């Protein structure tokens, strides 16, 4: 005799999957729409960037990249990333550690605060620094009296970048550390390890892939940030122009090859980031936190 359970289950199963599966034409239409959007809004612009950059040949491209102003913009971008990413790694790890491993008052508030840069327009974060450190700002007079220059200089750009890239590392590590709990740390402590040894030998290796993932995203944003940096930079050529700002200036001067050459570098960075991100997710998906909202 046939198993009655399976018999009664199968039609149900079929009708269930039939209910959630669209017919062939609808499927095709949905996929076509998605692909068309991808092509028009993502792929095409990317091709245009490289096409325009190389429109006048490879010679013009390398020449555009080797102009002193461009090279200074690249240097500044690398410098800003080199300062702000490590600082945000330190902040991200300590915030994640505090939130995941301890109970304290105001924890929910701190968690929300970390997300603030995501919800605030970058221009506003830039403006905040102008209001704080500008000549008419809250600390402006004091800074001037002590000869400290923040606005329209490298420190301002670094501060704005740190603000904007604040959440990346912390947001990546918090759910990961919460999920892993305190067990491994307690085990290490019971074996006589000091707090620093616990962090170095146990906690850090446990989150290393999640951390790398966060650093990658943080770096991509640090190098690509436009709005906040634009407000505080002052656009001084060869001095306070980062790559994204430099692209805008060159473009406004109708220097298409120059603008797109620099843009192609940023696009290249984005592609490299994307590939690395995908590789990390494929290889260490389980060890990277589940929050991939960015």
């Amino acid at each position, binding site marked *: 005799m046939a198993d009655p359970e399976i018999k009664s289950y199968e039609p149900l199963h079929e009708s269930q999957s039939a209910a959630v599966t669209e017919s062939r034409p609808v499927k095709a239409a949905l996929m076509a729409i998605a692909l068309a959007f991808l092509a028009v809004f993502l792929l095409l612009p990317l091709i245009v960037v490289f096409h325009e950059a190389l429109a006048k040949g490879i010679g013009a491209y390398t020449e555009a990249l080797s102009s002193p102003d461009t090279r200074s913009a690249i240097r500044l971008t690398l410098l800003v990333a080199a300062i702000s990413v490590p600082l945000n790694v330190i902040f991200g790890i300590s915030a994640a550690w505090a939130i995941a491993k301890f109970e304290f008052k105001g924890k929910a508030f701190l968690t929300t605060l970390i997300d603030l840069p995501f919800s605030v327009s970058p221009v506003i974060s830039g403006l905040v620094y102008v209001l704080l450190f500008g000549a008419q700002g809250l600390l402006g007079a004091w800074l001037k009296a002590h000869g400290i220059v923040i606005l329209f200089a490298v420190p301002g750009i670094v501060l704005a970048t740190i603000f904007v890239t604040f959440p990346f590392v912390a947001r990546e590590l918090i759910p990961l550390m919460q999920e892993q709990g305190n*067990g491994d740390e307690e*085990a*290490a*402590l*019971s*074996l*006589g*390890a000091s707090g620093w040894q616990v962090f170095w*030998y146990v906690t850090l290796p*446990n989150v290393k892939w999640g951390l790398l993932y966060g650093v990658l995203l943080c770096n991509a944003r640090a190098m690509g940030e436009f709005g906040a940096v634009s407000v505080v930079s002052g656009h001084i050529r060869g001095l306070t122009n980062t790559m994204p700002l430099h692209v805008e200036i060159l473009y406004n001067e109708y220097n298409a090859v120059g603008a797109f050459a620099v843009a192609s570098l940023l696009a290249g960075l984005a592609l490299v980031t994307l590939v690395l991100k995908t590789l990390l997710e494929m290889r260490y998906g389980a060890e990277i936190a589940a929050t991939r909202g960015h």
Partner: protein
Amino acid sequence: MEVRVVNVRKEFERFPALHDVSLDIRSGELIALLGPSGSGKTTLLRLIAGLERPTKGAIFFGDEDASQKSIQERNVGFVFQHYALFRHMTVADNIGFGLKVRHGAARPSGQEIRRRALELLDLVQLSGLEKRYPAQLSGGQRQRVALARAMAIEPKVLLLDEPFGALDAQVRRELRRWLREIHDRTGHTTVFVTHDQEEALELADRVVVMSQGRIEQVGTADDIYDTPNSPFVYSFIGESSSLPVKVENGEVWIADRPIGLQAPHARSGEAVLYFRPHDVDLLDGCSGCIAGTVAASRRVAGTRRVELEVGGERQRVEIELPVDHPAAQKSRVAFRPRRWKLFPKS
């Protein structure tokens, strides 16, 4: 190392998890903390380890007050229910971790650490697996590695938190026997937490029965099973039956009949009679006994469990009969508990 817990109280955010608990653990003893979840057994273990600090009271290791010491200074071996092995380290590195993190002269050479790790791996019968990672081991093997890692630091006390809780029944039984062997060979003072009474009674020299943040009874398996000192222990350990009774003139009564049990020291008034269902004498005639009509009868393995309705209020009580006993066929059964205890009505 002898461990003394003296009047320890522990509160979590004002919620008491342990009320005034005292316990003496003898050197070299294998002792079990047994209780349902929420009884405070794990909290007590973590307090001994130094993973928690007592709200009140003190814990002594020998003559030394350990309560002021950090967990690192206490030198205890702790084994977690979910192993807590370091997943990015090999088995050998896991076992050697406690030696590697030592400072200065206390830290053995790399070669020495490795030698000790292999030696311990041999002790826990996992030779040859030193290069594996925890993910490549079975649950039982992981727990053995965790024990080897805890023993590598030559701990004063070995503490195990539900060490077999995450394993299946077969492996549990095996590891139980094996842990007893290791203990007998190494002689560490060992405290383990469990909610499995079979595990506690079989494995431990003494069992500490806990309930609602208090110690109910401490004793050998025989003490705990044969002379439970509270209704909780009676009902938590093994099978038990209870009946509401009355004490008058040093005799136990059910309704208007004495049941033939003398209780010269019990206070007169209402009480509850506890006994083990299998620990009864079956009687033919009934002058001074408990008699009842058979309400239900079930065959359980080698015995027959009979549920009786007793007295005018038809209180139900369960007793165990041999399968072939003639009483099992009757509609009315009379018996008297062989070993029993009275507790005041709560």
